[in-house]
């Protein structure tokens, strides 16, 4: 019996398998498969699946966050547009009000100016009358003065002509 095994183990044919080597390779491979499938492979697989699911979850969350951000952005844009419209409306209103005010003020200023003009026109007339009156009084005074000087200068006929000329010139210079 031992001889048969010995004969097998000492097989020199390089192609044919030897029994003890088959036994050990089967033991090794079976051991590997049992331990790998039962204990060694599942943790690795679990770690990989855990990572896959975590990445998927993270991507989903990121997607959701992006959608939320887009929604909020749209909301803000709408609010901004609303504010712009409101600002435009307020500006327009202010412009209108200011226009009304301007016209109002202008009208009042014109009225005041007209009133002032009218008042000043009256004052001018009275002033002119006053001046004329004063002038007339002065003229009368002057006329008397001239008459006095003419009488006084009766002796020199030629001189009176000169005097008259002189006074007439003075009056002319005083006239407005």
């Amino acid at each position: 019996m031992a001889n048969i095994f010995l004969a097998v183990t000492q097989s020199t044919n390089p192609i044919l398998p030897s029994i003890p080597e088959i036994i050990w390779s089967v033991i090794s491979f079976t051991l590997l498969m049992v331990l790998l499938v039962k204990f060694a492979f599942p943790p690795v697989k679990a770690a990989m699946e855990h990572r896959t699911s975590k990445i998927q979850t993270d991507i989903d969350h990121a997607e959701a966050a992006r959608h939320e951000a887009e929604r909020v952005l749209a909301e803000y844009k709408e609010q901004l547009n609303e504010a712009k419209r409101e600002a435009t409306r307020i500006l327009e209103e202010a412009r209108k009000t200011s226009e009304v005010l301007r016209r109002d003020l202008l009208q009042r200023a014109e009225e005041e100016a007209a009133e002032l003009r009218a008042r000043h026109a009256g004052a001018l007339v009275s002033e002119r009358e006053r001046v004329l009156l004063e002038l007339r009084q002065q003229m009368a005074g002057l006329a008397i003065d001239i008459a006095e000087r003419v009488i006084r200068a009766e002796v020199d006929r030629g001189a009176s002509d000169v005097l008259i000329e002189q006074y007439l010139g003075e009056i002319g210079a005083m006239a407005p």
Partner: protein
Amino acid sequence: MQYLAINFPPISEVLNWKPLFFGGSAIAFNKIGLITLIAAFATLGMFFIAGRQAKLVPVGMQNFVEASVDFVNNSIIHDAMGPEGVTWAPYLTGLFFFILFSNLFEVIPFFQMPATARMAVPAPLAIGVYITFIVVGIKRQGLNYFKNSVVPSGVPSFVLIILIPIEILSTFIVRPFALAIRLFGNMLAGHLLLLTFTVLSEALFVKGIGLILLPLPFAMLTALTGYEMFVAALQAFIFTTLTAVYIGEALKGEHE
């Protein structure tokens, strides 16, 4: 004459390893057994470390393991099985790493032997895949599974006479052998290729005569070491992808 002194070891010497424990018994534990055990525990260790870290932002081992699981999910399961295949992720990921590590021992110092270059490793894996996809097919489609897998729809009946035997042969007979032999052959060839250039470099180095020639075999050895690392990953990927395709076919049937 000295050139002829290059002594290539007999093939049994570079493939059959002496038992480390239990010598002479049916469970003789040799280098191949050690490599498959290390491949299994390295895979488990990676997943345990990654599972214990379980950080939200993966770094280090967790990052590597998660990227690998993602790779198996996206490049293998999603393409070959559709979304339904996700439940097969632990099996396919484990299969991928077990084969990858078993292959990579081809270039790891002091081991320098891909466990998959011994038929004892790819054969049970292929048989396991064979049983798995047939069981899944029967569970999913009942006995119609056999009809659905060997009778393609929309083919004229006279063609079926030729096609059915071919389909039976390719699906239920050739598949497990092709799966096992593809992996075994590639890794054995790589191992022997590396060995050849190592022996050549060593012989030239020791004899001294070929020192001028040394850079060439040594450069080849270096380049091939890199290439074999690529092959190790590629074969693990092919084995896992084909497994996913077979199970995916059994899941879908011809109705979907």
